[in-house]
């Protein structure tokens, strides 16, 4: 049964530099980097040493808390370096890629006859498990639990987001294999959301419940989908996975190969000609963006502007992102920036700001905070962009004073930091909402588990 979802509360942030629908091959990245910090709350244990040879799909490290959960090398090659930080914490593992790629053969599977346990152990062994994340806590799914549903949002509403309909075109077979496998792991259903007017490759899939969503961002956030379909209660678990990761999982199930290739968007106002590139998980940022933007003083983001991670040219594409955004840095003073009428920045109000006049205009925003950090003062504005049935200001405050009981009652099991990206964007007091929620979730994970 399909259920249409219409989101009214939200805000579409329209930025300049949307990727044109042309795909090119990115320069091949000779060094691939895997960062344990991509996998929140996982403590890595290395399975390789510097100088060791690896095939694509072979585990690089595993989860200390659950040795079955393995993290695969996206390429075949030689472990070049293991970078450690304070207390010998593993920061990154660099792999020098071979010219000719070799893959571990995990074996093609017969999905129809596979049992849930077999699917699970296959995904764990092949390194596809980390693609599956869970709520509560927004961390990699715990394989010992059975989720009440699996949620996939194939509608990208975030600013400049890669268009799923475009990047997934022609991948129906892989997508189908992945959702069929996933549908065996849940006691409920696999819920997929697509844009209302979109021509999504996911709309024709079997073994799923399809939902058509419309409305402003965060209509495409998986958290919004969960809240509207089947909100998480205490003690329940749901799993989520992104469509581009379904493709990798599907290919593995069909062919036995862990192929970490992915089409990403290179977008943002600082990019000369924004378009799509074919690259690989962990590819160096340099191989993706070098020579493609003019502004020296720019911020490179692995991910979108609301939830991505700042990177430098030396950095790498993270494990989950399908977009690299480059926008100008805003490290300059602005004369009377708090007073003058503002036509070129986005504002949820009309306080001598005029972004409400045109909903179509695209903006060239930089990274300036447009003001200093303050205590919470304004009320009622977060609710305008927050479609979940949760009090955003009150839940943030409960995280700040660390009242576990209250956090639980307010709905912490239902949220992830990304759900608070918009409230953070419009926050008059410039409070770090996503960080507050992340720390709150971490506290609950530690204390309640």
């Amino acid at each position, binding site marked *: 049964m399909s259920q249409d979802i219409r989101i009214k509360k939200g805000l579409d942030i329209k930025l300049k530099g949307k990727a044109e629908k042309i795909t090119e091959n990115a320069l091949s990245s000779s060094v691939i980097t895997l960062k344990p910090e991509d996998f929140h709350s996982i403590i890595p244990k290395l399975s390789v040493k510097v100088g060791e040879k690896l095939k694509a799909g072979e585990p690089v490290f595993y989860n200390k808390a659950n040795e079955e959960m393995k993290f695969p090398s996206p390429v075949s090659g030689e472990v070049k370096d293991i970078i450690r930080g304070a207390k010998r914490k593993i920061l990154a593992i660099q792999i020098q890629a071979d010219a000719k790629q070799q893959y571990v053969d995990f074996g093609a599977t017969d999905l129809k006859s596979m049992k849930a346990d077999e699917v699970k152990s296959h995904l764990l062994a092949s390194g596809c498990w980390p693609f599956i994340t869970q709520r509560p806590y927004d961390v990699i799914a715990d394989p010992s639990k059975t989720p009440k549903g699996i949620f996939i949002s194939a509608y990208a509403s975030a600013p400049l987001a890669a268009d799923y309909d475009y990047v997934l075109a022609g991948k129906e077979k892989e997508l189908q294999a992945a959702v069929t496998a996933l549908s065996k792991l849940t006691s409920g259903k696999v819920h997929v959301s697509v844009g209302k007017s979109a021509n999504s490759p996911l709309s024709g899939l079997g073994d799923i419940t399809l939902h058509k969503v419309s409305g402003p961002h965060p209509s495409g956030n998986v958290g919004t989908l969960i809240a509207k379909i089947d*909100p998480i*209660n*205490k003690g*329940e678990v749901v799993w989520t996975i992104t469509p581009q990761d379904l493709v990798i999982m599907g290919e593995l199930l069909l062919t036995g190969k862990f192929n970490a290739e992915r089409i990403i968007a290179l977008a943002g106002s600082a990019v000369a000609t924004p378009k799509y590139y074919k690259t690989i998980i962990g590819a160096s940022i340099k191989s993706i963006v070098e020579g493609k933007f003019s502004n020296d003083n720019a*911020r490179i983001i692995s991910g979108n502007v*609301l939830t*991505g991670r*700042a990177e430098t040219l030396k950095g790498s594409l993270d494990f989950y992102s399908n977009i690299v*955004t480059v*926008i100008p*840095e*805003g*490290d300059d*003073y*602005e*004369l009377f*920036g*708090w*007073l003058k009428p*503002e036509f070129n*920045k*986005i*504002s*949820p*109000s*009309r*306080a*001598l*700001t005029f972004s409400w006049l045109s909903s179509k205009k695209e903006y060239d925003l*930089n*990274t*300036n*905070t447009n*003001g*200093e*950090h*303050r*205590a*919470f*003062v*304004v*009320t*009622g504005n977060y*609710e305008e962009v927050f479609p979940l*049935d*949760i*009090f955003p200001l*009150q839940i943030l405050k409960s995280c700040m004073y660390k009242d576990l009981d209250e956090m639980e009652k*307010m*709905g912490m099991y239902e949220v992830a*930091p990304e759900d608070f*990206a918009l409230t*953070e*964007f419009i*926050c*008059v*007091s410039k409070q*770090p*909402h996503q*960080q507050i929620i992340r720390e709150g979730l971490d506290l609950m994970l530690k204390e309640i588990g």
Partner: protein
Amino acid sequence: MGLKENLHNISEKVKGTKLQTTFGAIHTLFYTPKETTHSGGHIRAVDDLKRTMTMVVLPLVPLLIFGMFNAGFQYNSAVNGFTENLSFFSTDFWNFDNFWIGFLKVMPLVLVSYVVGLGIEIVFATINNHEVEEGYFVTGMLVPLIVPIDTPLWMLTVAVIFGVIIGKEIFGGTGMNILNPALTIRAFLFFAYPTWMSGDKVWVTGAVERVNEIAAGANLDAISGETILGGLAQGKQLIYSTWDMFYGFIPGSVGETSTLLILLGGLYLLYTKVASWRIMLSSVIGVLVMGLIFNGVVNAGWITESSKFYSLMSTEFWHHLLIGGLAFGIVFMATDPVTGSQTNKGKWYYGFFIGFISVMIRVFNPAYPEGVMLAILLMNVFAPTIDHYVVQGNVKRRLKRLKAKTV
């Protein structure tokens, strides 16, 4: 080197010293900082607290200027006789003589309010080592608008010190206070120096002085000018027309009299989305409901003309919005987001009771004709309770969902 570089260099120099806070306040007045995002999202909307607070100060400026003209106009009316039914643009009101009398009286109030208040803010910000927050930007403007014109400056100083420290700083400063700071200041004046805050001698400049001169034996006529509420509370007949009340050609605190300008200011706040329309609307509804109830009591004949409540009870229900400080309180005080209810649903209750209780206090307690101040302070105290129940509603819905599942 331009201003930008000079200011930047000074800010680097004072970094880490005690002067950092004070200089930062001045620096950010000219330039928004060059700070960039470092956690979470990489972009931010343009609105910051300075811009938001400025939007509240802007509509107060016309009220301040009107208050100056009105101060002179009331003085001249008291001396020379009141002219009824002036048009809003009459030169009897808008002339330099009126303005100058008012300017000399009102400007010191503004200066004292800002210098004393901001001084305390800076001291506390320096001690606590954080930036000077913008809350007092608005409070400092509100204070001169809600006190009688002849309030002695030393009294105002004492009240501002009390209001800012006890009303705000001990709770942690802007964003943490329970009571509206401007009203705390007014309430302090009201209870500490009641003779200066009500009666018929404080609303027209020079009146108190004249009383003292007469007492000393001078052969002069006394000046008096009662507020409408004060007059009604004593059962007197009104000499002011409805239009006088609407335009604001009446005695009262400096900035509270012109319902017309308050209305325009309120509309501006709603347009900018800075103030809550829920609070404003529900407050007005509260006023009208209570007013209608009292009118109904009078119409039903349950109360006779000899009753001391009669004249205020029989006041047309919508006149309550025109007289006294009710309109000003609803638009600029009740909508304070920090001390008001913080949930959208809670705002309806919060606003309604402000309007409702204001009129009730007005009618039943002639000693406190200005009920809106007490009503808002009372509801400030109750706002967290209202929010608590609204939030509990959400919590219960969540628990119910879980129960429905397990059954």
